[in-house]
């Protein structure tokens, strides 16, 4: 892998991240935003895991006869981050349910209209 070819991997991941990010900030539907957030975060995880990769390496479970392992630290970090992302998703969805009950809609534009009427 030479030159910029060694980086295209990251670029695709960045495009993925931005796809999710776009859904978060551009879509008025709350569930869609949560989905966007999920994609955004998952893509960030991919970025981390990509950086842990080592050419010719293998999973960091020590075994006789294997010399080269991938970096375990990002894996650990991402394990934690996945959990955090799940927690956020769960909480966000719970809020969405409550918002639906209180406003009768989960469209941000409609909610703003109702808020202004208050």
């Amino acid at each position, binding site marked *: 892998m030479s030159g910029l070819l060694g980086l295209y991997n990251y670029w695709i991941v960045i495009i993925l991240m931005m796809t999710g990010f776009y859904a978060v900030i551009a879509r008025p539907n709350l569930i869609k935003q949560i989905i966007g957030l999920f994609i955004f975060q998952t893509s*960030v995880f991919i970025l981390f895991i990509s950086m842990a990769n080592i050419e010719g390496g293998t999973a960091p479970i020590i075994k006789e006869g294997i010399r080269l392992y991938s970096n375990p630290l990002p894996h650990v970090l991402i394990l*934690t*981050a996945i959990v955090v992302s799940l*927690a956020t998703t769960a*909480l966000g969805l719970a809020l969405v349910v409550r*918002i639906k009950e209180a*406003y009768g809609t989960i469209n941000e534009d409609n*909610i703003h209209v109702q808020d202004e009427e*208050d």
Partner: protein
Amino acid sequence: MLISDLPVLQVVIPLAAAPVCLLLRNPRHAWACALIASWLVLAIALMLVQRVHAVGTLSYAIGAWVAPWGIEYRIDMAGALMVLVVAIIGALVMPFARRSIEHEILEKCTGLFYTCYLLCLCGLLGMVVTGDAFNLFVFLEISSLSSYVLISLGSRRRALTAAYQYLIMGTIGATFILIGVGLLYMMTGTLNMVDLSQRLPEVANTRTIMAAFAFVTVGVSIKLALFPLHQWLPNAYTDAPSVVSAFIAATATKVGVYVLLRFFFTVFGMQFSFDAMHVGEILMLLAVAGILIASLVAVFQDNVKRMLAYSSVAQIGYIILGISMASAAGVSAGMIHLFNHAMIKGALFLAIGCIFLRLGSAELRDMHGLARHMPWTMAAFVAGGLSLIGIPLTSGFISKWYLASAALSGGYWPLVVLILASSLIGLIYMWRVVEVAYFHVPGTMMHKVREAPAVMLIPTWLLIGINLYVGMDASLITDITRQGAEILIGEALQ
């Protein structure tokens, strides 16, 4: 458990108390549990300040794994001050909380409320003392998630949208921080802040580090509600339960500022942050814009909590302004204001909490002639307001004084005028409340209103007392902040 375990204990105690609270069915018991935990935290915080003062920066390797391999807790003077701020607010809010929560939150949620409260406390403390960039992210999320829940407990339905908005923005911010930390890790191979700071100079001029810097800065800025990333804040503070507004307004954004300080000075180093990235200029611009615009917006708010929320955005601008000067005087001024503003906003929101308890509203139009019926509460509010404006003999004056003189010595002329002029805008919005409460004829509904109970007034006045004490004798706090600023800047110079 020895005295050396204090750094970790103060985070672990609320963390351990949280599940206990979840188990306790009786709201009173849950409250008592949270109360004990928060007071223990305060006691530990005081001991920590004393110890840091005596022996200098503390370092605690969790699990006995030394620094870059394990997670390190690191408390220097600035950190100790932050711990103290969080602990004071956390401890004083608790006695206040019982009555207020009984009034504002459904009984079945009470135990859960205290659980979330303790988690939030734990998250904030963890963010302050940690010396590990990723651990910071984890504790940031603990505090954020719990504060989303706390905010959503507000009595109006708008609290839900406010919490949701905060959740979205907060998560974006946290993810940005995560990206930034990831990029940093990618270039250095370490997550420990001190280790990072030693390894960064080698790779400082890479574009990756610049991107990392940008992402961390933006991410943290969302958390600390730096203008124009503050949109979540006014709604969140307005619609949250009173106790939550007080606690979060006084601590969460402040801890965010502290994290920013850590990154700028400890991790990236002053030279990189301010000379290479020119973050000082950008921050200064945003701070100025934030101060002016948020103050002006605050003037036009009819809900007092919302007004205070916008005022918070402006006040954060002051803190950032101090930091953006990148001088020992500026940073220490910023930190003084950080402490003072935490106390002021805490007191003001508690006072509003008292009013809310009796009036069931924080709207200006409902407060006509309130001072007659709640003299102590309104007096506290006025005292806090004066401090917010920066009237002499209050803590707000001290911080504005330091800010102004830091700006003067840095040669930022217009800033001085701005600082003073904006405190005048502060006067305008605070005065609107005073005028309504003191100089208007009470409404017909008012005769039923009584003074708030003592358990709520005493914490409020304790905070006011801290304000006034600092206003009278700021030597203690300026000592601490000066040391803190010197350590921060000194680390940058090494």
